[in-house]
């Protein structure tokens, strides 16, 4: 059988079909086959792309928890301003990992957990350290005790403090503690316990706070060797049973804005060694309260430039706080006035304000796509970051 002939015959037939669908004539086929053009050159192999050491402000990090295969999560680097090649790169982030970008050093940190046999065997908790430009793994910091907190992606599971001098990892066994790491030397300095209190909320010159089960806050400062130097308890400042605050505050100018299930904003000044709870205010009008407008989503708020962005949903009820919402309310923090009310085509699940001028808002929608909005709240572009990607948390590039 003359296969070559057969294939050629078929190819021609199919070209005609293609032409029909693109509304071009068959005559173009020969026009597309000039005989005297130079051939394309051979290309070098082994070429690997690199990234700039300082990422542009339009870039962001999308943390794909990969719930379908949790041991194979990843952090994807995306350019919000790109109409082509928007996916810049990815690094691994295994098993309920946490990610943070250093501003002081050209490094990325991923706290993650591995087993010697994938899902079983010996456990090793580490912080993987990546070079920002090559994305090569420079080194790893082994976390003592294998007690890293594992929770659906939450930025406050690991934070950089004191101008990125200290990397602090939250542990949960369910006993709570924080592992203090010197970011420059990668040495583990100390472990500080804060029983019954959770997450790392940076505050003061060199310290962090954690929220406790009764709505109180414990605040700890440490010295250059990571040793605790002060501990303060801020008495319960919200009602956990009636109207808890989300555990993912947005920091704007040293103030952590906690948003409550029912739509209040609870600001806490974190600039001093002892957090200071500021007067709470509501995102909602009376009419909106009556219609049960409530914050809802995962990374439910973001802030910057004196503004607070919150994902909102109408008809809220007990249990609706993680569903995502069809609106984004933007409030001017100083005046507490709503300056923008974004009506979304696809409801939002998580959001992050990027450090661009003018403003860019990156949103993970409930279909797990990523939508980019401009300062006026207009949709600019929509990205898919993978067929089974779940980019639950977005991180702005710090610059």
């Amino acid at each position, binding site marked *: 059988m003359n296969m070559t002939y057969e294939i050629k015959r078929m190819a021609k037939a199919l070209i005609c079909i293609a032409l029909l669908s693109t509304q071009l004539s068959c005559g173009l086929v020969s026009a597309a086959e000039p005989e005297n053009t130079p051939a394309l050159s051979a290309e070098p192999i082994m070429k690997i792309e690199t990234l700039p050491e300082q990422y542009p402000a339009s870039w962001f990090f999308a943390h794909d928890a990969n719930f379908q295969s949790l041991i194979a999560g990843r952090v994807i680097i995306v350019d919000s301003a790109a109409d082509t090649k928007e996916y810049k790169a990815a690094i691994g982030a295994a098993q309920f990992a946490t990610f943070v970008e250093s501003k002081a050093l050209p490094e990325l940190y991923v706290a993650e957990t591995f087993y010697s046999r*994938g899902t*079983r065997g010996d*456990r090793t908790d580490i912080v993987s350290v990546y070079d920002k430009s090559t994305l090569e793994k420079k080194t790893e910091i082994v976390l003592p005790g294998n007690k890293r907190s594992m929770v659906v992606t939450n930025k406050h599971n690991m934070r950089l403090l004191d101008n990125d001098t200290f990397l602090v990892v939250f542990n949960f*066994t369910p006993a709570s503690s924080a592992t203090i790491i010197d970011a420059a030397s990668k040495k583990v300095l100390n472990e500080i316990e804060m029983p019954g209190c959770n997450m790392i909320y940076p505050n003061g010159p060199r310290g962090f706070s954690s929220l406790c089960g009764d709505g109180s806050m414990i605040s700890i400062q440490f010295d250059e060797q990571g040793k605790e130097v002060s501990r303060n308890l801020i008495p319960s400042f919200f009602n956990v049973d009636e109207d808890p605050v989300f555990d993912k505050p947005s920091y704007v100018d040293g103030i952590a804005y906690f948003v409550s299930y029912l739509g209040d904003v609870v600001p806490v000044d974190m600039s001093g060694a002892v957090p200071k709870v500021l007067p709470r205010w509501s995102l909602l009008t009376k009419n909106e309260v009556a219609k049960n407008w409530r914050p809802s989503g995962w990374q439910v708020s973001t802030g910057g430039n004196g503004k607070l962005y919150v994902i909102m949903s109408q008809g809220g009820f007990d249990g609706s706080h993680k569903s995502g919402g069809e609106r984004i309310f933007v409030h001017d923090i100083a005046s507490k006035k709503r300056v923008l009310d974004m009506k979304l085509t696809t409801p939002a699940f998580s959001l992050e304000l990027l450090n661009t001028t003018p403003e860019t808002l990156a949103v993970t929608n409930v279909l797990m796509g990523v939508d980019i909005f401009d300062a006026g709240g207009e949709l600019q572009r929509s990205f898919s970051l993978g067929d089974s990607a779940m980019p639950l948390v977005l991180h702005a590039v710090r610059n």
Partner: protein
Amino acid sequence: MNKLDKIFERSTRKLAQNTSRRSVLAGISTALFGAASIPLLPIAKAASNKPDNGYPGVGSQTSGIDGDPGDPSSCDYWRYCAIDGFLCSCCGGSANSCPPGTEMSPITWIGTCKNPADGRNYIISYNDCCGITSCGRCLCNRNEGDKPTYRPQANNDINWCLGAKSSVYTCSTGIILGVALDDA
């Protein structure tokens, strides 16, 4: 691996995109804001010849227990009012047991769910099953009474496989611990 999958992704996503936005959103919001909060009626499913748990390609179930209505392979099942994850019922386990080869985490979070058959509130323990990769079937997230991580015992975001030999999460159960104090 095969193009077919890409085509599947493409075709289904395209279908979703091409379908009128309104109907898609309606579908999403019904499922989101409806199903999660509607107590299951024991009559509907039992009477139907074509039970639908909402997961195409997953067989429907009953718990087999008198007074325990609904379908343990459905996200709407009454015990799942604060669950988050893959339903073990769809993964070789059941509402109260783990699939073969996994281990059950002894530490967990607790919810209070109303059984529509007797109107009582029950304390439900959402023990995770651990040690095998994510089951991938019947992903379900409901959050009645769910509190943030600073109240861990009422939080379903935490990987509760922390009490097991392997912390790799496979699926979640919903086990009756007893009648809630108010209803006892």
